[in-house]
């Protein structure tokens, strides 16, 4: 379970989990789950294009995810964000279907990017994964204060001179980098689960940003580790365990919130819940 190939799997998955936990915290905070879904899926189309012209898949992943991030940010300035994201993902997937229709030889290798190959990570791939992961986390910490500010209170941040457009671009670029790093390891579908579930669960347990971020990374690590171990023991796919553990932790978070609300129940609280229920 801890030998040779498996060691690479443990290491690469751990790196991906920590980065996903940290970046995911801001994705949940900013409500940009759709972009976190669109970029990995669109990047998958880039990998198909890369194999068509015969370059390394990771180049295609990087080019498409960065272009996608810039387009979402650019179009999102003048229209609703979710519309821009929806259009970007369909255009990238449309291109992907064109690329896939032209190339037939390497199709299985491309499809593996949808589901990831955590057991297929070679030692030479570990270094780039670690480097990109470091860059992502460093970037988050460099822009931490303005990013936090513009995520939580966009109006006040803008009044204080934080450029929310620039923050959006910077953040989406970090998501794009995370995508590039994570898709070959865990796949376009799984990385989304890893970005959202741990961070959403962590936010239910604490409202302190640093604690939530750390907790999110820890939950992501726990999820990935137990998923690999369970999959090793049971021979079921890793994605199944990541998905169900993610849903489980989120449900636990919701349960925790409901339990605390019950304990502190007061007329004011329930009135608020009713009102926002009607508005949503």
């Amino acid at each position, binding site marked *: 379970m801890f030998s040779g190939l498996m060691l690479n799997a443990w290491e690469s998955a751990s790196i991906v989990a920590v980065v996903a936990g940290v970046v995911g915290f801001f994705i949940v905070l900013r409500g940009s789950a759709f972009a976190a879904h669109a970029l990995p899926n669109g990047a998958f189309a880039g990998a198909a294009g890369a194999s068509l012209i015969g370059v390394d898949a990771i180049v295609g992943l990087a080019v498409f995810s960065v272009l996608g991030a810039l387009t979402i940010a650019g179009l999102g300035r*003048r*229209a609703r964000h979710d519309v821009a994201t929806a259009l970007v993902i369909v255009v990238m997937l449309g291109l992907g279907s064109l690329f896939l229709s032209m190339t037939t030889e390497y199709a299985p290798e491309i499809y593996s990017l949808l589901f990831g190959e955590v057991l297929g990570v070679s030692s030479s791939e570990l270094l780039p994964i670690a480097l990109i992961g470091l860059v992502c986390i460093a970037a988050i910490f460099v822009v931490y204060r303005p990013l936090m500010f513009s995520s939580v209170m966009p109006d006040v941040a803008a009044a204080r001179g934080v450029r929310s457009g620039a923050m959006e671009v910077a953040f989406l670029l970090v998501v794009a980098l995370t995508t590039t790093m994570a898709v070959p390891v865990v796949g376009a*579908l799984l990385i989304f689960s890893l970005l959202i579930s741990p961070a*959403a669960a962590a936010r239910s347990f604490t409202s302190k940003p640093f604690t939530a971020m750390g907790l999110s990374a820890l939950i992501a690590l726990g999820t990935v580790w137990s998923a690999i171990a369970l999959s090793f023991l049971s021979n079921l796919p890793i994605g199944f365990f990541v998905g169900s553990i993610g849903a489980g932790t989120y449900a636990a978070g919701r349960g925790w919130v409901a339990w605390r609300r019950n304990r502190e129940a007061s007329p004011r609280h329930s009135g608020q819940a009713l009102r926002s229920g009607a508005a949503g």
Partner: protein
Amino acid sequence: MLGFLSPLFEPGFFSNAPVQTALLVGGIVAVVSGIVGTFTVMRGQSFAGHSLADIGTAGGSASFLLGISPLFGFVAMNLMAAGVMEWIGIRRPRGRDLGAALGLAALLLYLDTTASSTTGATINVLFGSIFTLPSSLVPVIAIFSVVAAGVVLAMYRPLLLSSVSSDLATAQGVRVRLVGIGYLGALAVAVSLSAVTIGAILSTALLIGPAATALRITNRTGRAAVIASAIGVVATWLGVLLAYDSYYWFPSRGGWPVSFFVVTLVFLLYLVSQIRFGRGSRVQRAGVAAQAG
């Protein structure tokens, strides 16, 4: 009389049965997507619309196992998913994102258990295959279309009011929650329909692209729905035509995919409307302001 058009249409375009079915089904789906999509864009539920297309895949594969038509599996799965989204997203407006997100996680869960080897079925549902539709499916598709469009049209006024301002609608005595659930149900049916026939990519493209373009062109919702349907139909038919023609294009391995053409057309139209009507309609500006605030 139409001889001058012959360079445009490769021989046999109109007499080809799969093409006829594709044009018919594509047209129906585009009209329904235009009507439903106008409200999807106004309500900011693009993500819900997109993830339903993906989630329904799980229902589609389940119905293969049960031996019933995938369309019914799609609809059942999506109605369930829409219910869960409504339930999770009820507390705060932003939570809806999360609801959609976790629904997607559920899809993954299912996909991985049933198709641990990456079979072509998943890919087929994702990218769709409009040319392989059996013509026996047309009546079923028509019925579901009428249901989805009918629900939206039946509650047109309260839906419009609650999409523009839920506070105002509440003050007017509209049961916003109920309207929201009804709308999500219509969205679920419409998306199942388009995803199972033309694929998840095209489903989202036809739901969001034409509607967003139409809302750029006009402020009036009814007119926008009509324009969106028209754009969708034109893009789909042109896409089918181009895909048919492309059979002899480079690299001559059996034609370019329909989804590529339709998506490109929809996106180009959206870009043009961005430039031409750059200021944006009031609805969209209000949407952007509401989102920023």
